[in-house]
């Protein structure tokens, strides 16, 4: 804990967005000190690899890594594919130039093509929309959750003439599309570890607290890393850190997207039930045992809806615990502490 007194004060405060305020100087000092301890003293590596998506989380992780270790010990990777937005690549390049780090761009589309990512995905999409063609765009959006319904997922497709269609997915179609798109995060991670091995570096994972807590990552994909410097920071706090670290305006103002599907897709469309500012507050309130009534007043929703939000948080924690878990041994190997 950075400041116990401050924590106690905040814990007793009225629930407003102010509870997420941080002292960015203190947070920067703390994270940088820990990064050096973890990477250099515990992991005995010479630097870090950071995959830069152009989003706020990886940008802040890269900037903190540069502060902690110096630009010469941070290697950036831009890993676009067919469905990534070109704006993301531009932001990634802007960040790498801004931080003065060595970086490499590798288009992973040919690898994904060869491994069947797009083919498996499109096969599942065609079972829902038989007219779907390669030049159509697609995304998955979440339903339910905050209105008391179970979560379900809809596939949205857009023909070249702009006509959009959407249908709810059954579990087989949903699982196949997600499994296929998860190739993207897993191939990226394979490349990150190639460079980490080559340079004898650690790999930085870039989830914020909301993503980490709610399991918004791919197991053995973006969930895999040696160190996760901002997993304790709410997304709102990551934006505050970006401003403190002096990152380019275009990055500080970027909206969170998944950049995984060909149609633009906000994280709140795909996974979270609410925009990140409200999810942050809801998660903080839940973590600090605030009542659903208090959350309802703060968000301007009914107490019933606030209770649904809490339930959705717990459901996601429960159903994604598997993603955090190490492989389970049938019997402990006590010599290794496992």
């Amino acid at each position, binding site marked *: 804990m950075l400041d116990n007194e401050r924590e106690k004060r905040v814990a007793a405060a009225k629930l407003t967005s102010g509870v997420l305020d941080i002292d960015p100087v203190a947070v920067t000092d703390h994270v940088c000190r820990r990064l050096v301890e973890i990477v250099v003293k515990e992991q005995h590596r010479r630097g870090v690899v950071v995959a830069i998506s152009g989003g706020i989380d990886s940008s802040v992780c890269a900037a903190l890594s540069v502060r902690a270790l110096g630009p010469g010990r941070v290697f950036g990777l831009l890993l676009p594919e067919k469905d990534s937005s070109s704006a993301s690549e531009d932001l990634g390049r802007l960040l790498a130039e801004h931080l003065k780090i060595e970086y490499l761009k590798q288009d992973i589309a040919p690898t994904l093509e060869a491994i069947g990512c797009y083919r498996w995905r499109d096969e599942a999409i065609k079972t829902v929309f038989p007219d779907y063609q390669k030049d159509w765009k697609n995304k998955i959006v979440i*339903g*339910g959750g905050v209105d*008391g*319904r*179970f*979560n*379900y*997922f809809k596939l949205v497709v857009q023909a070249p003439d702009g006509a959009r269609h959407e249908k*709810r*997915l*059954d*579990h*087989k179609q*949903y*699982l196949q599309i997600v499994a296929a798109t998860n190739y993207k995060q897993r191939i990226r991670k394979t490349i990150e570890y190639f460079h980490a091995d080559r340079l004898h570096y650690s790999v930085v994972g870039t989830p914020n607290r909301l993503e980490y807590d709610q399991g918004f990552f791919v197991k053995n994909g973006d969930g895999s890393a040696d160190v996760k410097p901002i997993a304790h920071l709410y997304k709102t706090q990551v934006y505050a850190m970006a401003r403190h670290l002096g990152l380019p305006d275009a990055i500080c103002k970027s909206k969170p997207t998944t950049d995984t599907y060909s149609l633009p897709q906000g994280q709140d469309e795909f996974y979270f039930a609410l925009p990140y500012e409200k999810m942050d507050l809801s998660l903080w309130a839940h973590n600090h045992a605030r009542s659903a009534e208090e959350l309802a007043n703060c968000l301007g929703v009914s107490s019933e809806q606030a209770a649904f939000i809490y339930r959705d948080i717990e*459901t996601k924690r*429960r*159903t994604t615990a598997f993603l955090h878990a190490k492989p389970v041994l049938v019997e402990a190997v006590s010599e290794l502490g496992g």
Partner: protein
Amino acid sequence: MSDIKIQVKQYILDNFLMGGEPEKITDSVSFIEKGIIDSTGVLELVSFIQETYKFRVEDAEMVPDNLDSLEKIEKYVRGKLASAG
């Protein structure tokens, strides 16, 4: 036990419990609270209901009140079948 409850119970036993612990599935037990079905399991259960009883589960009907126990499912399915005539 009614046909609907028997069919759904057998599906849950076969699909989620791999045949084990049938005593866990009482009429009123909450599948979610007892960890019998997770969020993907709910989608699988919906597919099963749609295929078995030949009607569409609407988005607005995907609520615990319709799907989170044998007796709730039976009531929901009977209502849907009755309204379909």
